[in-house]
């Protein structure tokens, strides 16, 4: 088990090194650290002096080494000229909004897709199953932002029951200054509903289909037939024997899809004017803030790698067969 975890962590570090190298090369080619630091109103001579002081004339790998060292030891990912603050601070400030969005969406997906997927597997011929299956193809073909726009129109403008833009009231957590949450106020929660629902329509069809097909496959196996032959009740055969085997592949996919959801938060954040990382990213693109873009790349990559690694390790804990291969 230890060897398995260690191997996954080494892999994760290697991936991060590759990503940071790519990110740094881009920054090295098109970024402008001098401007990031002092703005544009300096003479060429001053610029050259500052560049020399910052070590911008050093060989590529010396600079790369410094970049990685600063990032790992000081959490220093450079400076954003757009916000005139360290990049990491800017990102941290926007992160809670996005994470809450993803968290809420994940919750909706789990609560809806598990029962519906299992139901469709157990009763494939009923009206509800057929309806769900055809509706899910439509769902896959529907862009999130279109769903979001329609939801805003219906719930916020036409019926005026839910708020449309922003996060609403937030509470500053632990007095940190950057960690604000909308989960603790009624208004904050109400603001979360529409963005989370529209984001979840993207993944719901996929999960319902996945759970359904995995479950149907499991129901055909010998060990399920044997569970019946042992005289177990349907509830036990379905909810204990079939369910756990269904869940294993679903968990892996869930880990990957959470990552993918981060990409789609950009779209929902734009529609809902949600002050998260995606919104910040788009701002950075429009103002050509390369330094912030690269920092965002590194942070998001790090997030993905951590989530993937944790999911893999969790999977190892749940699935007994993986544990053994891991210790070999």
């Amino acid at each position, binding site marked *: 088990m230890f060897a398995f975890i260690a191997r996954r962590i080494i892999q994760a570090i290697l991936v991060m090194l590759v990503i940071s190298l790519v990110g740094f090369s881009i920054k090295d080619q098109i970024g402008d650290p001098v401007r990031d630091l002092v703005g544009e109103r300096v003479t060429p001579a001053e610029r050259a002096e500052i560049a020399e002081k910052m070590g911008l004339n050093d060989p590529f790998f010396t600079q790369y080494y410094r970049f990685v060292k600063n990032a790992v030891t000081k959490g220093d990912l450079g400076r954003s000229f757009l916000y005139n603050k360290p990049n990491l601070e800017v990102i941290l400030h926007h992160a809670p909004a996005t994470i809450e969005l993803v968290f809420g969406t994940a919750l909706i997906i789990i609560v809806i897709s598990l029962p519906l997927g299992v139901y469709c597997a157990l009763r494939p011929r009923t009206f509800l199953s057929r309806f769900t299956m055809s509706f899910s193809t439509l769902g896959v073909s529907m862009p999130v932002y279109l769903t979001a726009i329609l939801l805003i129109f219906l719930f916020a403008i036409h019926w005026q029951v839910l708020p449309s833009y922003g996060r609403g009231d937030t509470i500053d957590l632990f007095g940190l200054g950057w960690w604000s949450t909308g989960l603790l106020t009624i208004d904050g929660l109400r603001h979360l509903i529409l963005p989370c629902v529209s984001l979840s329509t993207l993944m719901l069809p996929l999960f319902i289909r996945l759970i359904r097909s995995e479950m149907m496959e499991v129901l055909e196996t010998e060990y399920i037939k044997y569970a019946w032959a042992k005289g*177990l009740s349907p509830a036990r055969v379905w909810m204990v024997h079939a369910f756990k085997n269904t869940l*294993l592949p679903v968990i892996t996919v869930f880990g990957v899809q959470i990552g993918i959801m981060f990409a789609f938060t950009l779209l929902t954040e734009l529609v809902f004017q949600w002050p998260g990382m995606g919104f910040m990213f788009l701002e950075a693109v429009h103002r050509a803030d390369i330094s912030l873009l690269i920092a965002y790349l590194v942070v998001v990559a790090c997030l993905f790698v951590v989530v993937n690694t944790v999911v893999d390790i969790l999977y190892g804990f749940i699935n007994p067969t993986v544990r053994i291969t891991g210790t070999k």
Partner: protein
Amino acid sequence: MSHLLEVKNLEVKFALRFGDITAINDVSFTLDKRERLGLVGESGAGKSVTGFSIINLISKPGFISKGSIWFEGNEISKYNDAQMREIRGNRIAMIFQDPMMTLNPVFTIGFQMVETLLAHRNISRAEARAIALEKLKKVHIPSPEQRLDQYPHELSGGMRQRVIIAISLLSDPAIIIADEPTTALDVTIQAEIMDLLQELCETDNMGLILITHDLGVVSQVTQKIAVMYAGKIIEFGPTDQVVHNPVHPYTIGLIGSIPGSIPPGQDLKQIPGMMPTLTDIPPGCAFNPRCELKQDICTRETPVLMEKQNGIMAACHMK
């Protein structure tokens, strides 16, 4: 006196898109206390379907279309699901073909044993665990204590089949139905498992229905044999009679094809051709295209199972 198990004129059909096909056709046999019966035939002959229909677990499009099954004087083929669950794994236990696929990979051996007991008896988890342990000892598993907390993939195939036998023993059933219990195992382990099954049936007073394609195995373990061909029993009788003086040309062919059944130096005989698939069974005797004794009548009339010699019943026009 009533039999422990009686299968009367069983017919099983599979509902397919283009119509129903008959997988089991008019099969009848009985099993008494402590009796061991072998169901023999090629794959597709209907032996497994017969076994599964006894506990009403035929795979999906299949259903019992005619006939009845009586167990301890009750017509269990009329039972509903809840009543049937009281029989399955409790009074009639099953052993499946491939031990690698039979146990659920994500639960421990102990978990899978305890849940079986708890499904049938009102006892505590600790009591159930104690019984599980006792049964594991009974099937001669080394360090049984430790096995309870292991996962199926940590055991070898032979060991897993022992675990499955132990599971079937849990609630002291009246009958064990073993569907090709040794086919997926190494030859050396096959003999051990068969010996174990036979020994347990004797010590625990259980009836056994052994489903197999291997006449050699059946002849060592059982007292009666039913030979099946294309969904029908074509020969039925005491094991030593069927093995040494078979009546039906198919059985003769089967026995002739076992290595060791004939003197050294002679060629093994093979039955020419293949068993027909269920969708195109020839008219008359289903065996007629492959039969050496075939006459006109064989293609016109279906032979019925009749008393022939030495207690053997056979379905053949020519004998």
